[in-house]
């Protein structure tokens, strides 16, 4: 079964490139939907789009920034990445920043040809998607549950449940957050790991629970 994190939308105007990208990405475990920019509405309406998109920057008509804005408007939590043959796309960066786009990474064409280079590229791509997806979901959860006292209601929030759905790939980011400050990640940690290193008498004590989970993470090299 393909994990949600491995589902990727590729938007590129070049038919040949779309075909080769789909083949290359699927060889590394991604489930790719490769489309031309003008197919976006049709794909969105008929099947929705994955939670991450890799968009060619230089396209005639609507360019990559235009497509990214449209995708962000369709799904505020989507992970956006650009693929460009241009090494220094400063003008695009300015436009993306002006539009409030949070671009997870700017990749440079061509996609590596050798097996080792490609493996490193796809590992980086996978990590980038997971990190940005966690960040987007965590920010939404924090904003939409800031005034909620119910632990249950906060944990049942859609974004929090999607973080749990990320499984083990979310653990490094949760632990990193906990290293920064106490936060209510314990329900997610228990759900993902099936473990609970905290003492029952420390229930609700975020400082003590955080320390217990950080010790747990350290023992596992996280």
């Amino acid at each position, binding site marked *: 079964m393909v994990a949600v994190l491995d589902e990727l939308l590729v938007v590129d105007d070049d038919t040949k490139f779309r075909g080769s990208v789909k083949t290359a990405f699927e060889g590394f475990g991604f489930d790719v939907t490769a489309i031309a920019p003008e197919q976006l509405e049709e794909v969105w309406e008929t099947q929705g789009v994955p939670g991450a998109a890799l968009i060619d920057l230089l396209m005639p008509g609507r360019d990559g920034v235009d497509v990214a804005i449209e995708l962000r408007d369709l799904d505020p939590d989507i992970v956006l990445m650009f693929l460009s043959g241009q090494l220094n796309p400063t003008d695009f960066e300015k436009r993306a920043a002006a539009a409030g786009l949070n671009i997870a990474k700017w990749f440079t064409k061509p996609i590596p040809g050798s097996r080792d280079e490609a493996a490193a590229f796809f590992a980086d791509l996978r990590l980038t998607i997971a990190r940005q997806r966690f960040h987007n979901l965590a920010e939404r959860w*924090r*904003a939409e*549950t*800031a*005034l*909620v*006292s*119910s*632990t*249950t209601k906060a*944990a049942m929030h859609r974004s929090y449940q999607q973080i749990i759905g990320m499984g083990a790939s979310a653990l490094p980011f949760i632990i990193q957050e906990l290293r920064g*400050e*106490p*936060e*209510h990640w*314990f*329900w997610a940690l*228990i759900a993902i790991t099936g473990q609970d290193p905290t003492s*029952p008498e420390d*229930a*609700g*004590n*975020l*400082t003590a*629970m955080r320390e217990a989970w950080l010790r747990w993470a350290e023992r596992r090299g996280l």
Partner: protein
Amino acid sequence: MSTLPPEIASSLPRLARDGYRLTSEPTPIYNCVAHAAGEAFRWWWPDPMGVSYWPDAAPREETLAAFVTAFETLGFQVCEQSQIKDVPAIVIYADGSRVPTHVSRTGDAEWWSSKLGRHLDLDHALSGLEGDLYGMPMIYMRLQESVPFPQARPSADDRSRG
């Protein structure tokens, strides 16, 4: 009066109309139930996962009865709203399904005192928190005369326990 953060003003629109005083910085360490119970070092809630603190004597369920039992362990008893004037008291808010959402405690003079989720503490009128977010005040509880009122603010002891 400090400015109400926009995320609070939009979620609790009656605060601006009925008045408020901000009394702390945001913190995820404790919540409204802990604040009403006089604690500032842990989060109280009867969640089924058991990650939040809940008194052993009270059922770990999101019902008004469970909240009443939890505060009875601290010496509170259910009363009418008319019986809380000049008496230390708490009020439990609940939504339209009578699921508890929030607890406030009496503060200075006519004010009530609340911690808003992971956000800040503030003093407010009872009506100031009514609305879609917390629903309505449902149950009032007053402290029995022989029991000291839990501290309204984090004590140095509480902070050191964090």
